């Protein structure tokens, strides 16, 4: 049985297909999950009869897990999620065995998606755009690893409720106008944006850095290079690293000055 999905993070699309397969009693090894790559391919109607008496309840923990997995970019996600669903019908406590190979693999996918969610909340950078009317408007461009834009957008709605915004990505876009949050899964083009405040942000980034504590690997673990091209502050990084040693050496060479500021002398005189 071949199932073809659009596969852009739409949980219901997978759920409907999985529910049908389960009702028809089709075992995971007989299902071939494919992606609709723009070609006109449709899933044929399911043959065979519905297996009676099959309950379709799943633990809530599975729903949370599957909703995250379905957003992963690994083509194997649909088959793995269906295998878990199939096994859960007999092994009700399966998800409580984190050492099970299927569960462990699913958890890794989930973790990767949640990390991507988190990095989106961290690394989206809004640029202000001119707009008529009382509300200010901002646009951001972000490049996620997985199909997470729609699941992460409500965070921005809760946080930036009083401004209009658009977050565009190669995996779909979301927009908020104070009334409705709208999302699509069409690839967007990178807009050409600039914002003067970025210069103040770069000033802050350069000055909060302590050259005596260089830990480049630590920085890159948390802020991998793939994000740098869309972060206004990242262009400063090579220069800050390159100049760090000299700055520390200069500090060491420069003895404390013999003279003290005048206001210090006045303070001393007061006490």
């Amino acid at each position, binding site marked *: 049985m071949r199932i073809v999905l659009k596969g852009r993070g739409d949980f219901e699309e997978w759920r409907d297909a999985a529910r049908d397969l389960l009702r028809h009693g089709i075992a995971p090894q007989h299902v071939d999950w494919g992606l609709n790559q723009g070609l006109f391919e449709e899933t044929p109607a399911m043959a065979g009869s519905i297996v009676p008496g099959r309950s379709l309840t799943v633990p809530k923990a599975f729903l949370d897990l599957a909703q995250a997995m379905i957003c992963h970019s690994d083509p194997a996600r649909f088959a793995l999620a269906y295998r878990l669903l199939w096994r859960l019908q007999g092994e009700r406590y399966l998800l*409580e*065995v*984190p*050492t099970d190979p299927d569960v*462990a693999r699913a958890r890794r996918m989930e973790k990767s998606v949640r990390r991507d969610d988190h990095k989106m*909340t*961290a*690394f*989206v*950078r*809004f*640029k*202000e755009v001119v707009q008529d009317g009382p509300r*200010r408007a*901002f646009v*951001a461009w972000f490049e996620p690893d997985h199909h997470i834009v729609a699941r992460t957008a409500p*965070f921005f*709605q*809760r*946080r*930036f*409720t*009083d*401004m209009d915004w658009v977050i565009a990505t190669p995996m779909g876009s979301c927009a908020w106008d104070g009334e409705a949050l709208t999302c699509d899964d069409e690839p967007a083009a990178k807009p050409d944006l600039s914002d003067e*405040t970025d*210069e*103040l*942000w770069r*000033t*802050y*980034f350069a*000055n*909060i*850095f*302590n050259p*005596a*504590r*260089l*830990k*480049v*690997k630590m*920085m890159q673990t*948390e*802020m991998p290079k793939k994000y740098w091209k869309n972060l206004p502050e990242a262009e400063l*990084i090579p220069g*800050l*690293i390159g100049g*760090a040693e000299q700055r*520390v050496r200069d*500090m*060491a060479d*420069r*003895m*404390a*000055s013999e003279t*003290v*500021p005048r*206001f*210090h002398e006045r*303070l001393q005189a007061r006490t």
Partner: protein
Amino acid sequence: MKKTLKQRLAILSDAAKYDASCASSGTSKRDSTKGGIGSTEGSGICHAYAPDGRCISLLKILMTNFCIYDCAYCINRSSSNVERARFSPEEVVWLTLEFYRRNYIEGLFLSSGIIRNSDYTMEQMVRIARDLRVKHGFNGYIHLKTIPEASAKLIEEAGLFADRLSINIELPTDAGVEKFAPQKHPKNIRRSMGELKTAIDEASEPTRTGRKKHFVPAGQSTQMIIGADAASDATVLGTSAGLYDSYRLRRVYYSAFSPIPDSSKNLPLIKPPLMREHRLYQADWLYRFYGFEIGEITAGRPGGMLDLQLDPKLAWALANRESFPVDVNRAEREMLLRVPGFGTKTVDAILVARAHRRLGLDDLGRLRVSVKKIKPFVVANGWTPVQLIDRVDLRDMFAPAPQQMELL
């Protein structure tokens, strides 16, 4: 000529970088669906990382770096020739909101040099927090560094607007503080912490209406400078444990003493002891989350100093080999937490999983544990490490290869 906003931002963020904390987690959950701007959702967010590996979560700045105090370790001490600047309260509010709207930050961490007197300075800082909350409906995170000797009434007001308040203990011993920060008084710092703890406790008590008062929901924290004086790790950790227990601090931050421009001659001009700082954080974690007593971690360590080559949990295991191997299928949680290579999440996963299966090394590998690292310390299904734990070269198996010492 008056310095531009950008020039002053450069000075006043440079002056703020010696405060280690940038946390924005653990506060009450808020959003702006009912008005205003901003949200806090439990876990903090690091919006950037500087090449020093530190998380940038907050706009961490000083209101001013003019200061009437002369603390030897501080870049802003009155006798330093560092360039001085000052923000108006409106400028701090504007920067916070504009940075926030562009998603650069989670909120503000505001500290200040002391101008005129403690109460005047604290009043200005409270005004900034109040304007953000009341005038601009800001629901993001606010951390205020309270000014030593500021009046209790001002601290109380600050607590209504801030998520976190902190006051730095500065150095691990009272003698150190008196030597390097002659105008600060350790007794008064502890009294402030005590008063704040009492106020937080009172605010968290249920009221008749059932509504809790919003008062410093992310609690209080402090910072200690490491390596400026001669205090040992045992002393540092003992001081921390005392602070955690007496004032229920959320965090004690350790800040490796770092050379500062125009440094005082009374201080060592050294490379900051970053590895030492790292080991102290690890030991601090063992105390707070792994059931270790400070005495166990530092027992038998020469001069009360932690092993720089091995993490303190591994060092403890090697010094207490008789406690191993630990059977992953039977041992209590407390003992599993002592296995080098098991974190708290791993231990929780083991406890859940072993109710259903007997666990072998391959199962542990699927929990993303380094099997190589834990093998000598555990018994698992199909695995007993009889000889390993008795090996005399066990330390060498873990210690990093020797490196050439680096000069400054």
